[in-house]
């Protein structure tokens, strides 16, 4: 398809002004054709021009004045009369009234925009040009308060039962109180019987947990190859000119050092950069990262969204805020140090096309590029391989709600907005959203495309991160068990069982482990007589089965996990997973303490500590040099 007239004129103008080399224009024209977009979008996806130069040329092309909205800010009251989403989509805003005329600024001049302006603002208008960045900033300033409120309270106001704003509800407190009373009464009236009963429940829980995980690995391992080939084939056959706009959210907080890794990875995506709507989401108080992002002089498709300071200061709140400026049909979240596989977005689109209509989210696999750095990174890699490569596909196959992983979850924008996106009060908002999607009748799929991240190299840092995850799982468990009948009705008995073992089991086993380790130590040191009163033969044999077969099974599953990626050298490290469980237990108790004392506190994970990240950073900076 030849270039449209506007693009041709703009190209000629840039050539005449010496802002673009002929070879660059040839390349840009080729991309316009391949991506089926205008020259302006292509130029915004390249760093050939400074934004000021581009918009000056644009203004000259249309013979319109160029305004600087920082020096000449728009009338906020006027701006707030109009719908921010529409203005964001059109990149067009009203500046002020001048007599009976309204001044309209646009970053996308052209016939379609003129029609939109006439439809929205009437015929008596004067059009000026402003940069996309200026318009975006103006919108963020004008709608700051309500959008910040929406980001924090959107879910809590519309669907309070699904929000973790209340950590625990009165009926839940009552149930906990009743259970404690029952336990205390039991201890007073029949202490041995009570302990045996409690012991039985915990032992059965352990057995169920082991068996459920084995089932997941079995089913997940079988399921993994089923649809992968069809998805890969469709992704490979996709034409770039037929792809939707894809929003990429990159929430960051005080991690300026790793930003180049992500920007390099996004440039490497097999997806037209001009069809990406990339939002680097930063807290407005995070001057250091904002400065670092600006200093990179990124392409126009990279937009910095500054999130107003408010509580809770969490990643989901930042994402909710940025979501209001998202223009894509689909959306994905990446962390700053992420390296998604280049064909991931296309594979996701293919997966959406091949999935049932109610599929609202596709979760990609996560793994680590510094797997072999130290013991912790090896264990973390085994953990993630088990989780993402085997267990999540198992959950998908069994129809159990999938707790989404922190990044690389891709959403249909309409569903995400309809559900009020992430819960800012939940510190594992992704896991919570996965469960909520299933409860609302949507499906979450898992596909075979990996995003590589930086595994935590430091134990204290790992414990902080894991304690947040476990606290989030506790919040998620509390939120979704508020209405047990509703839960059963929406996700079915098998889903509830899976939810209890997968979400509940994750933190409960961490909390209960030390108790059973202690009992085992007592047994070994003081002999069977000490524990026999509370371990009648049936429970003793079941506990022994858990201790030996159950733990061996979990160790084995950990060893099997890296085989899908053929990382067989990691398998023997699975033998040391018991040490990793000890760390999980520490993190579980830290999480429990925080759930009570500081439920919404976001334990920040420090990225960029790995020596591999340094080399990734160097590699990411290389092409730019």
């Amino acid at each position: 398809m030849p270039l449209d007239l506007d693009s041709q004129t703009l190209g000629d103008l840039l050539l005449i002004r010496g802002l673009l080399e002929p070879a660059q224009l040839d390349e840009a024209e080729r991309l316009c054709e391949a991506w089926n977009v205008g020259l302006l979008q292509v130029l915004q996806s390249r760093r050939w021009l400074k934004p000021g130069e581009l918009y000056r040329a644009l203004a000259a092309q249309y013979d319109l004045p160029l305004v600087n909205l920082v020096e000449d800010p728009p009338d906020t009251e006027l701006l707030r009369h109009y719908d921010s989403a529409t203005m964001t989509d059109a990149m067009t805003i009203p500046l002020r009234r001048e007599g009976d005329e309204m001044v309209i600024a646009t970053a996308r001049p052209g016939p379609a925009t003129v029609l939109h302006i006439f439809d929205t603002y009437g015929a008596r208008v004067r059009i000026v040009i402003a940069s996309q960045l200026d318009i975006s900033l103006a919108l963020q300033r004008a709608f700051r308060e309500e959008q910040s409120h929406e980001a924090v309270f959107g879910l809590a106001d519309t669907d309070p039962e699904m929000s973790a704003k209340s950590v625990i509800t009165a009926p839940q407190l009552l149930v906990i109180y009743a259970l404690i009373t029952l336990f205390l009464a039991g201890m007073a009236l029949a202490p041995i019987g009570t302990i045996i009963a409690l012991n039985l429940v915990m032992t059965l829980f352990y057995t169920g947990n082991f068996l459920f995980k084995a089932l997941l690995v079995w089913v997940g391992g079988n399921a993994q190859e089923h649809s992968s080939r069809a998805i890969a084939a469709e992704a490979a056959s996709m034409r770039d000119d037929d792809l939707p706009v894809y929003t990429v959210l990159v929430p960051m907080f005080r991690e300026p050092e790793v930003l180049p890794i992500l920007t390099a990875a996004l440039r490497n995506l097999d997806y037209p950069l001009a069809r990406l709507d990339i939002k680097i989401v930063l807290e407005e108080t995070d001057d250091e990262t904002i400065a670092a992002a600006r200093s990179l002089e990124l392409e126009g498709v990279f937009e910095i969204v500054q999130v107003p300071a408010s509580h809770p200061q969490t990643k989901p709140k930042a994402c909710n805020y940025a979501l209001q400026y998202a223009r894509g049909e689909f959306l994905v979240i990446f962390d700053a140090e992420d390296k998604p596989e280049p064909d991931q977005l296309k594979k996701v689109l293919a997966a959406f096309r091949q999935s049932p209509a109610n599929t609202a989210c596709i979760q990609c696999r996560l793994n680590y590029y510094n797997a072999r750095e130290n013991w912790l990174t090896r264990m973390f890699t085994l953990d993630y391989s088990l989780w993402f490569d085997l267990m999540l596909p198992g959950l998908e196959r069994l129809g159990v709600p999938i707790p989404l992983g922190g990044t690389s979850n891709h959403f249909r924008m309409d569903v995400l907005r309809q559900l009020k996106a992430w819960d800012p009060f939940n510190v594992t908002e992704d896991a919570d959203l996965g469960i909520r999607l299933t409860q609302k009748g949507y499906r979450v799929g898992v596909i075979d495309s990996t995003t590589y991240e930086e595994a935590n190299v430091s134990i204290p840092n790992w414990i902080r991160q894991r304690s947040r995850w476990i606290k989030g799982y506790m919040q998620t468990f509390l939120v979704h068990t508020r209405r047990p009948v509703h839960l059963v009705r929406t996700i079915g008995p098998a889903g509830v069982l899976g939810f209890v073992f997968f979400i509940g089991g994750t933190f409960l086993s961490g909390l209960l482990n030390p108790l059973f380790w202690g009992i085992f130590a007592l047994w070994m040191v003081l002999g069977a007589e000490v524990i026999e009163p509370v371990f009648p033969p049936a429970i003793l044999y079941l506990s022994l089965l858990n201790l030996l077969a159950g733990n061996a099974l979990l160790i084995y599953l950990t060893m099997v996990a890296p085989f899908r990626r053929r990382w067989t050298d990691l398998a023997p490290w699975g033998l040391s997973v018991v040490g990793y469980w000890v760390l999980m237990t520490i993190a579980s108790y830290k999480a429990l303490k925080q759930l009570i004392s500081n439920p919404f506190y976001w334990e920040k994970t420090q990225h960029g500590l790995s020596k591999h990240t340094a080399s990734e950073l160097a590699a990411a900076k290389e092409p730019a040099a």
Partner: protein
Amino acid sequence: MTRATGFLLGWAALATALLAPLLWVEAHGFLSGAVIADWGRAILQVDGPALFRATDPLYPPLPKVLTLAVQGVAGRPGLPTPHIVSLAVGGLTLLVWFGEFRRRGRYSAPVAAALVLLLALNPVFLRALSEGPGAVFLVLGTWLYARSLLDLRQSGTAPDMMKVAIGLLVVSMAHPFGLLIAMGSLPVIVLAARPSMIAASSLGFMVSMFFPAAAAVASLLFVSLVLGSTFLALEPTPAGLAPLDELSLPLLTGAMAVIVLARLVPAPRRMLPLLAAMAGLLGAILLNFVFRFESDPALLAAPMLGLLAAALPLSPVNRVRGAAMTAFLLLALPLNGWGLATFGAELDRRWLEAALGHDLGDPLRRERALAAFLRDREGVLLDAERHPGLIAVLGGTRGLVIAGQTSYELAALGGRPRAGYIAVRAPEGSTGGRDRLLAAQPQLSISAPGGYRLAYQSGPWRVFEITGGNRTWDGT
């Protein structure tokens, strides 16, 4: 009919069909010592006193635990409990083979049925069936192991790995010879690995494959330690069997697998896993020369049938394949029968005689006679663990004073027996090891000392009535 119903019906039909050859040899007087032992011990565990704790080895747990479970559920079935487990496992084995021949081997239903029938009628398979569930599990586990090696080579998914590990786990938990199969497979299992699996680390591959079996053995050692029982008790090896005899029958049984293997040479992706499984079995037999875990050539040969069943679907498809394979298996029947007669142990020859219709006499006739004498008597001290045959004939422990009861424990420590009777068996010809009561009361082996009256004597069995002292015991 749903698939599950069809599966269950097929399983039940095959298990029932296998009952005929089992009853046939039993009717002609063949009942293996292993079956008697497992049966009697299961009755003891279920019917014995609450404080009864077996001192016999827990190993191999798979047949023992299943027999125990069936005993607990079935109560007093009409046939030995281990046979019920053998029939169930044997029926399941034949059913999965049929499915495998149809799906993977693409044999027609009649040919697949004929192959399964011929494998089921193979004297080595029937001999394994008579030996109890442990031997049948050896066949099933070896098949699962060999088949899963093929899957691992073809697709290499986590469940394929798990199936290989389960196969090794089943054989090593089913029979002491299974431990040798796991050990024998250790150096050759890499033959079956996809190159990508051992590119990063062959050690990691092997550790993962063998971890379940190693962990299970370690767990059983731990349990033996904390429960104070022995881990493994091996029967003494009968003299007279040359190493060549032990090797000949397995080679004869696995000969057809070698033929299939030879035809697969141009397809290493299918040939190498089969070669690895076969090499593992041969390695196990060689290890057995050293460790002497199993002395019966028929039981050494039984896993070869599992290998053969895994090999049959791999035979290259052509017009004469079905007929050729059927003919080979048909030929294997007399050949393996001859092999049993020529290279087999004494027990194998006895089984063959029974199978051919010769009456061997009742193997438990002495126990039955003693049981008839004890039927209405109370307070009989007995080392029940060492005489499972008697327990099997009695069908329970009513009237007995056994391990776990104070009177027995005192008598076993050499104290004056406090019971109505004491039954002991002289060591000669014992099937279950040394009588612990007789060891504690050695005077009973030579005479009836004061305070005792010889009430019964038949063969090695003696029952003394305790006439003097305290005649009250637990339960009176």
